[in-house]
């Protein structure tokens, strides 16, 4: 780790003698060519080389192969090696199919609703737990449980909670005389997706809570006290002092949640398998069914490429948000 902290004005604060020399050299990039820079940093490259090699094997090649496969027809009755080149036909077929738009709408609803509510709930929990009160530690541990337990186990538990004949929720409602028969949560095309989103929010909000709790630690106490002295009420202190300090961590949390939700598989697959009548299929479950259930490897690859592009976009914003954070921290 270099002992140099670069601020947003391009100058550096240096704490050691060797660090000073390094900082001077860094501030004069025009004096050395690209190859010389690489040579000077050869040790750094050597450190990251194994990781890059592994990534090339396990990430770059599959991405390349998926893109290649997306241009081929892969009839389910033939081996994959018997594929035939069809250009963009798979993409055309996807974009003109009704299922694609239905699944895309489901995916958007799933991602936006899950991300939004997980964040809001997590943020609220973080604010509540940021204050000192008896039992705070225990409560914090309890609230983290949904995030810690296996998604597979959680899916099975919720499947029984929701069970349309013998679910706990249904039994309570019927027992209290609030319903004649148990509500139909996951066997109904209208209610299945919202029901799965609730499970997803339950599982994800602790992540947002942890992130925001960490963010709250960075809000300067003296600023809050100064605002209080100036007569700011609780809402004003939150809105004008706390919230602005959390904007970076909020952005990162929302982007991470969005990426995770776009990539969700376990909860919808285990609880409903995308059903009933495809009402809870989101992109990943649909891709899985196309590839492994129906062996349409070409179409599934084309879907994956489209998903990849969307995730890359989200990734771009994530990196930008991180870079923004670093700049702000550097300038602080």
């Amino acid at each position, binding site marked *: 780790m270099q002992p140099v902290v670069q601020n947003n004005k391009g100058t550096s604060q240096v704490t050691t003698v060797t660090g000073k020399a390094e900082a001077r050299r860094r501030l004069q990039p025009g004096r050395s060519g690209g190859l010389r820079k690489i040579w000077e940093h050869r040790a750094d490259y050597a450190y990251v080389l194994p990781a890059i090699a592994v990534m090339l094997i396990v990430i770059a090649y599959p991405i390349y192969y998926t893109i290649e496969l997306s241009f081929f027809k892969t*009839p*389910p*009755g*033939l*081996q*994959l090696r018997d594929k035939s080149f069809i250009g963009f036909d798979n993409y055309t077929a996807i974009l003109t199919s009704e299922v694609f738009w239905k699944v895309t709408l489901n995916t958007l609803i799933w991602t936006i609703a899950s991300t939004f509510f997980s964040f809001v709930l997590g943020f609220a929990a973080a604010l509540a737990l940021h204050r000192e009160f008896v039992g705070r530690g225990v409560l914090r541990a309890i609230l983290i449980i949904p995030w810690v337990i296996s998604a597979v186990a959680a899916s099975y538990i919720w*499947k029984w909670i929701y*069970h*349309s*004949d*013998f679910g706990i929720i249904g039994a309570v409602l019927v027992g209290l005389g609030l319903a004649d028969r*148990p509500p*139909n949560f*996951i*066997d*109904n*095309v209208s209610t299945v997706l919202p029901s799965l989103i609730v499970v997803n929010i339950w599982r994800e909000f602790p992540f947002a809570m942890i992130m925001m709790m960490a963010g709250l630690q960075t809000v300067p106490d003296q600023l809050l006290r100064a605002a209080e002295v100036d007569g700011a009420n609780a809402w004003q202190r939150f809105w004008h002092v706390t919230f602005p300090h959390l904007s970076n961590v909020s952005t990162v949390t929302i982007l991470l949640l969005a990426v995770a939700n776009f990539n969700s598989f376990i909860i919808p697959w285990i*609880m*409903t*398998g*995308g*059903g*009933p*009548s*495809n*009402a809870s299929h989101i992109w990943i479950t649909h891709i899985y*069914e196309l590839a*492994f*259930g*129906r*062996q349409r*490897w070409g179409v599934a690859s084309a879907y994956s490429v489209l998903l990849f592009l969307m995730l890359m976009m989200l990734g771009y914003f994530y990196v930008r948000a991180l870079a923004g954070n670093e700049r702000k921290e550097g300038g602080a």
Partner: protein
Amino acid sequence: MTRITLGGAVLRGTVATALMASLMSGSALGAPPVDLSKWSPEYVRSIAGTQDFDTAADCGKVTPLDYKGRLTFWYQGVFEGDPDLLRQYYKDFFETFRKTYPNIQLEDQALTYNDLLDKFRTALLGNAAPMAVRLQILGGTEFASKGYLEPLKPEDVGYSTEDFWPGAMKAVTWDGVTYGIPTNNETMAFIWNADIFKRAGLDPDKAPATWDDVVKYSKQIHDKLGIAGYGLVARKNAGNTPYRFMPQLWAYGGGVFDEATANPTYEQVELNTPQSKAALQASYDMYVRDKSVPVSALTNQQADNQPLFVAGQLGMMISHPSDYNVMLDLQKKATGADKDKAQTVIDNMRYGLIPTGPDGKRAVVFGGSNIHILKPEYVEGGKVDEPAAKAIICMWTSPEWSLKMAYAGSNPGNLNGFKTKWMKERLDNIKFLDVTTSMLPYGIPFPALPQSPEIMNIIVPDMLQNALTGAMTVDQAADDAAKKVKDLMGGL
């Protein structure tokens, strides 16, 4: 008391004869070790325990018992809906194999019915398949037609083709070549709770005679007792769904193709014929119109119906003979008042033949599993230890183990299994076995086509879900499914 008109039912007219002929119309009709034309519970009892077999000695002739090798093997194993008894037999099998062939290093992996196909297909794409695999009956033709499997016939492991059900041999034959050996074959039966029938005002000892009766009985049970009448199952990607809907479809005279005829050609898609639509309408009537079946049918499978049945919350369902043992297992795990309630259900369990359609046609899926050897180029490491693979296949398909591994839930693939002492013991121990073996002549194999897994695991359940959720009308759902099958057969 169970009242089943077995003799009359078994010999029920030309329909059963045609189906029997279908099962017997294998490529190699020789002299089977049992007389299939005499098949009845009495005949099965008469041959049980009449012959002894020495499995180790027989398999030693195929692969010497001191053979040294290594075998990777995947199989469709026991799952949550199976009784504990079956788990024990699976454990015993692998222990016995390791003792019999101590120098074969066996790396076995059990997968559930619903997971095995996906995992196996993926492994094949990466040339990382096991050397041998035991697949559901649907899988044989799919992988044989794609060229993944080595030719393998019963003679290769010391048996004769005539030792196996001719209908089962069809499921492992592609383009005239045999690519596997059946391990077990089964037909299910109809189970009902006599106590529920009685309380609903139905004859407690009489199963519904037709599928129209099932719809009526289901409604009556639901209306009078407020519980589910019939255990409908319509989950996608679960083998349970076709095993329960296809008997209904065939009974009404429908089908995916003409698979219910004696000599199917699989040329004409029949999912949207009036008969097929009538079968779908019956499910619609129970689920949507009468609300007389579990609401959870769209996301549940048979394993979810079993607890409902033992809790006295479900009147009737299609299932294996093993469900009796499953209920016993569930009863043992129950506590307090639930234990007594479960015992009451068990005491009132009745098994009967699956109902007929409006024209008297009775049908059931001829199910089971097959065992195969992979071609070396698709196997991890590029090598197949054929003698080791044949050793385990010989043992699993032997009269002894094909019977024991199907002890509670199925029937031996090797017909000689019916002659063993274990069959005799099984007839005494497994209640209602008579009924499910009596259904064997009504068994119809799934279409022996590579597209069958997608049709049965995805398209047919999708059709049911589309109709039952109201996403489509019954007509639209049937037409949509027929189109999907046509597209699939057309290579789309």
